[in-house]
């Protein structure tokens, strides 16, 4: 889950970022504190959802993209349950 390191460097140069993390590695995201993080319930290797579940994948992506526009501080973290489409801001 090293994308947090890369996201930090990209933000530092002035480009907004959003990271998707899976719930199993939430502690990594809490540690690295990238500017915007969306946490999903999925398994390693499938952070955006299951194969050929286009709507599930799009729901995750849209939720993450919304963070780009709605977050106003770092770190902002939201948890998105892509099975129920429930969203919770956790930091």
């Amino acid at each position, binding site marked *: *889950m*090293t994308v947090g390191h890369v996201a930090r460097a990209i933000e530092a140069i002035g480009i907004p970022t959003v990271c998707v993390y899976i719930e199993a590695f939430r502690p990594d995201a809490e540690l690295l504190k*990238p500017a915007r993080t969306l946490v999903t319930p999925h*398994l390693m290797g499938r952070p955006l959802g299951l194969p*050929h579940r286009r709507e599930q*994948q799009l729901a995750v992506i849209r939720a993450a993209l919304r963070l*780009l526009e709605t977050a106003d501080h770092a770190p902002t973290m939201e948890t998105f349950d892509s099975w129920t489409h429930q969203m919770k801001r956790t930091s």
Partner: protein
Amino acid sequence: MVDHQANAPDSSGPEPLSLKAFAASLYHAERADNAFKFLKNFSEEDLANFVQGLLRQVGDAIDDGSTEALARFVEQGQVAAYVPTQITAPFRPDFPDASFSPMRKPLREATVALFSSGAIYRDDQDPYYPAELTYEQAVRDVHKATERFPSLRVIPAETPEERLCVGHVAYDIRAAQKDINVIFPLTRFRELAQDEVIGALAERNYSYHGLTNIPRLMQESAPQWAQMLKDDGVDAVFLIPG
């Protein structure tokens, strides 16, 4: 059907395989299975409870014709297996809050780049492990991945899905091989650009192998890659983990 109740262990045969030993064999060993390697983290009792629950979920999935509850059960098992090991890891430096760069234009006008640690590469590029190894050998040699320096692959926006390969040795790549959009959503972003949710997908998108030499990643690669994205002129970056 015969019920072999008298199927007692043969004293001349191999040692009986314990549940814990089986789980350990899934972790980059003789039964390497990156989808279920997390079982290695469970205590014997937790492991037995998980397997029992898994069998119940499989039975329900067969009867109900739906795998959603089964998928959720496995997802929650992975969380239960991994989260405690991260919280108690001996070396956990506390990072200061990251910089925050606001969006400078509406998303519908923004060019967004994909950046994945999922070890995606095109079929005319090198995979992320030495060419002399098969993928299966590289999975068993997982500890060597952290010695390799980070390397980046450029994935042009118009790359057809069938030309994309996955070389990550630490996660189960089967889902990505069936549908690359589970980890590198090139097609989904092309659709979002067409639907004007985003302005455009960047011409150059990127991937690296997330399990890598971390000091090198932090000190050299990440700042260089950030400058590259700035030179590309992208307005935002969407990062997906491996």
